[in-house]
C-alpha cells in the first residue's frame, strides 16, 4: 500500500513546492483514502487545494484499465492499443485545428479517444501507447478519453498488451435480448434481431494485416432498416427472413450498424413473417431528435426547414490532391494550388425537434439552382466574387420547407446528412389545418 502511494505522495509534495513534509502528506493521504474513502484522484486534488496549491500541477496520474474509467476523471494513466485513428480539422474559438480521434483498446474494453493537441509521436493503428494525465468526459452516455495539453503519450513495445481482435470478444453470457431495428443503439451487445435481408454482398477487408471476408448489406424490420456486417459466412441471401441471436451494435463511419460473428446463431424463419422487401426498403421518415438519440442512421428521410447556410456553401475550389476546399486559394495541406471548381451546399436543416447539417453535392446543388457549375463560374466572374452564387442559394433555400433523404452520421459536433435526394416540400396547409381543427373540436 505504502509503496504504491509513494509516487503520489511525492507528486503532491512537489505540487506544493515542498512546503509540506512527505510524512505529513502521507498521513493525510492515508486518512482521505482509508477513513473518508474518497478516490485517489479526489484525495490528491483535495490535499493540494487544502494547502493552497494548484491541483492542475499534479503530474502523476492514476493507472486504470479502460473498463475502470468513469466520466469526469481529471488525470488518469492508461496502457492501451490504438484500435483506429483518424485526423480531422475542427474549428475551435475561431481558429482551425487538427485533432486526432479514434478508438483505444485494452484487454478489458474499447473506448473512443480524442487528442486535442499535437502529439510528439505519430500514432498508427496497432501501436501500444502509454498515456499519462489523460482526462475523461461523458458523451451520449459513453465515456470518452481526451488527451489535452498536460497529457503525455509515449509508444511502448507492441507486446506490452495482448493483440486486439475486432469482433472476437468474450463469449456472451446469458440469453440475447430481442431488439427492434429502430431501437438498436451503439454499444449494445448480445442482441437478437428478427429481420429481412434486403441486400448482401461479400467484401474483402484487411484486418490486422490479414485479408478477411465480410458479408455486409442492409436488413430491416417494420420499424426501420440498418446496415449490417457478418464476420462469418452465414450464406445470407437477399429476401430471406432470419433471426440473428448474439449480434452487437457498432458505429461505423458515424452510423450505428449491426455486426455479428461466429458467436452468433442464425435461424431462418418463414418468409411471410415480415412485410415484403419493397415495403421494408422505403426510407423511413424520422424526427431529428430521434436521429440524435440513435446516433445517426442509414437512408432516412427528414422534413424540416433550411434555416441557414453554413460557411463554404456555393461555388468552392478544391485542392486537386486531397479534395479539401481551399481557403484564400490555398490548401491547408498542399499550400497554394490551382483549385478545381465545385458546387456544394452546407445548410442547417431544422425540423423543430432538432437540427442537422445537410450537405448537398454538386449535382443536387445544380438542380436546386437550376444552373450548371459553368454558369455559376461565369456569374461569379462577372460579379468578381463567388458570393453571388451563395446569395442566390440563400435566396432559394433559406426558410424553405424541404424533404431530404440520405445517410445521417453523428459525431461530437452533431448530426450531418449526406443528402441523396431532396425536394422543396409542398404541403396542403389547409387540409392539414382542417384535420387538426376537427380533431381539436372533436375532443373538446
Amino acid at each position: 500500500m505504502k509503496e504504491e502511494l509513494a509516487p503520489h505522495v511525492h507528486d503532491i509534495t512537489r505540487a506544493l513546492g515542498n512546503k509540506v513534509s512527505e510524512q505529513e502528506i502521507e498521513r493525510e493521504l492515508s486518512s482521505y483514502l482509508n477513513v473518508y474513502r474518497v478516490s485517489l484522484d479526489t484525495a490528491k486534488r483535495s490535499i493540494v487545494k487544502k494547502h493552497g496549491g494548484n491541483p492542475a500541477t499534479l503530474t502523476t496520474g492514476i493507472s486504470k484499465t479502460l473498463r475502470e474509467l468513469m466520466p469526469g476523471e481529471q488525470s488518469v494513466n492508461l496502457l492501451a492499443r490504438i484500435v483506429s485513428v483518424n485526423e480531422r480539422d475542427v474549428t475551435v474559438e475561431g481558429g482551425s485545428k487538427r485533432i486526432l480521434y479514434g478508438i483505444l483498446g485494452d484487454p478489458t474494453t474499447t473506448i473512443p479517444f480524442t487528442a486535442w493537441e499535437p502529439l510528439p509521436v505519430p500514432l498508427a493503428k496497432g501501436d501500444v501507447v502509454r498515456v499519462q494525465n489523460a482526462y475523461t468526459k461523458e458523451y451520449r452516455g459513453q465515456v470518452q478519453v481526451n488527451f489535452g495539453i498536460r497529457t503525455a503519450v509515449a509508444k511502448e513495445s507492441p507486446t506490452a498488451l495482448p493483440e486486439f481482435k475486432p469482433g472476437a470478444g468474450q463469449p456472451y453470457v446469458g440469453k440475447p435480448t430481442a431488439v427492434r431495428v429502430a431501437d438498436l443503439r451503439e454499444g449494445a451487445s448480445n442482441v437478437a434481431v428478427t429481420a429481412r435481408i434486403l441486400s448482401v454482398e461479400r467484401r474483402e477487408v484487411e484486418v490486422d494485416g490479414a485479408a478477411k471476408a465480410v458479408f455486409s448489406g442492409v436488413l430491416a424490420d417494420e420499424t426501420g432498416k440498418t446496415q449490417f456486417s457478418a464476420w462469418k459466412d452465414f450464406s445470407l441471401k437477399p429476401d430471406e427472413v432470419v433471426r440473428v441471436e448474439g449480434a452487437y451494435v457498432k458505429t461505423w463511419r458515424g452510423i450505428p450498424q449491426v455486426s455479428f460473428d461466429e458467436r452468433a446463431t442464425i435461424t431462418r424463419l418463414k418468409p411471410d413473417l415480415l412485410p415484403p422487401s419493397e415495403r421494408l426498403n422505403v426510407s423511413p421518415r424520422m424526427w431529428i431528435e430521434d436521429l440524435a438519440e440513435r446516433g445517426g442512421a442509414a437512408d432516412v428521410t427528414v422534413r424540416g426547414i433550411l434555416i441557414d447556410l453554413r460557411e463554404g456553401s456555393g461555388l468552392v475550389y478544391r485542392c486537386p490532391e486531397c479534395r479539401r476546399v481551399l481557403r484564400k486559394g490555398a490548401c491547408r495541406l498542399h499550400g497554394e494550388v490551382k483549385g478545381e471548381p465545385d458546387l456544394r451546399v452546407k445548410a442547417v436543416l431544422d425540423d423543430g425537434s432538432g437540427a442537422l447539417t445537410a450537405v448537398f453535392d454538386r449535382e443536387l446543388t445544380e438542380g436546386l439552382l437550376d444552373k450548371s457549375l459553368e454558369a455559376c463560374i461565369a456569374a461569379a466572374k462577372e460579379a468578381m466574387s463567388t458570393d453571388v452564387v451563395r446569395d442566390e442559394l440563400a435566396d432559394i433555400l433559406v426558410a424553405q420547407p424541404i424533404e431530404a433523404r440520405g445517410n445521417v452520421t453523428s459525431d461530437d459536433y452533431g448530426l450531418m446528412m449526406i443528402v441523396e435526394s431532396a425536394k422543396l416540400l409542398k404541403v396542403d396547409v389547409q387540409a392539414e389545418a382542417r384535420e387538426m381543427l376537427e380533431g381539436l373540436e372533436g375532443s373538446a
Partner: protein
Amino acid sequence: MIREVAWRLFASEYNDANLETEGTGERPPSYIVTPLGAKVNRVFVVGVITDVENVGTDGQPMWRARVSDPTGTFHVYAGQYQPEAASALSKLKPPVFGAIVGKSRIYSPQPGTTYTSIRPEVIKSVDESVRDYWILEACRSLQKRLDAMAEAQKMDPPTKEGLVKVGVKESIADGIVQAVNHYGKVDLSRYMAMLAEGLRYLLPEYREPIAPGEPTVDAPRPTKAEPSREADESEGKVLEIIAALDADGKGAPWEGILETATTRGVSKDSLEESINALLDKGLIYEPILGRMKKI
C-alpha cells in the same frame, strides 16, 4: 456543442414567458421557458414585419422590427453585433412577410416586468406560403406542449421521469417541469383557444368576408375602429412627449408627462391608458419608479 433547435411558437406564448434558465457546460446557453414549457434558446418565426425603425443613433443604429403572427407581436432587435441581420432589416420595406431565425432574449427593467424579444441571426423576406406553413408548424408544436402539459397537470408533482413514461419526449419534459414549478397551474383553455385561432387563420371558410364595393358589410366597423384610432393618436403623442422630456437619459418624469399631455389635449385617463398600452407593446419602460423611457 450540439446546435440548439429553433422553436416554432406563437408570439402570444413567447411574450407570456418570464422565466429565464441556464443550461450546463462551459458556455452555458440561456433559455426562456414559456408557461407551456417550451425551453427556448433559438426561435424560427415567420410573420408580417409591420414596421422597422432605427431606435438607436445614426452612428450606432439599433434596428427594431415588429413581427406579427395570428396571436400577437414579436419584437426583433438587431444592432452592431448582428451586422447581417441589421443590414437585412434596414433594407426591408414593410409590410412584408419575413422569416427570422434568432436567439431568445428576455429583459427585465424592474422586478415583475419582463419583455421578451429576439436577437436575429437570419432575416429574409418570404412569400405567404412559407408563412402559412410556419403557422401550421407552430400549431403542431403548440399542440404537443398542450398535450404534454395536460398530462403534467394530472401528476402531483409532475416529474421528468413520469412524463417520459407517458410518452412525452425528454427534451420537452424538462421544460414542462420547470414551467410548472415556476408558473403553477396554467390555464390551458387560453392556449387551446390560441391553437384553434391559429388553425382557423389558415382556413378560408373562417376568414371574415371582404367584399369590396359593398360598404354595408363594413358598416358596423367604423364604430370599433374609431376609438382605437383615437387611442393610437394619443399613444403617438405620449410617446413623443416621453422622448422629448427624457433630457438626461434617465427617463421622463411622470409629472412632466402629465403636464405636457394636458396642454396637448390628452386627458389624465387616456394618458394612463396610453402609457399602459405602450408598456404592453414594449415601446416604453419604467427605468425607475415614476420615470418613463422610450425603448
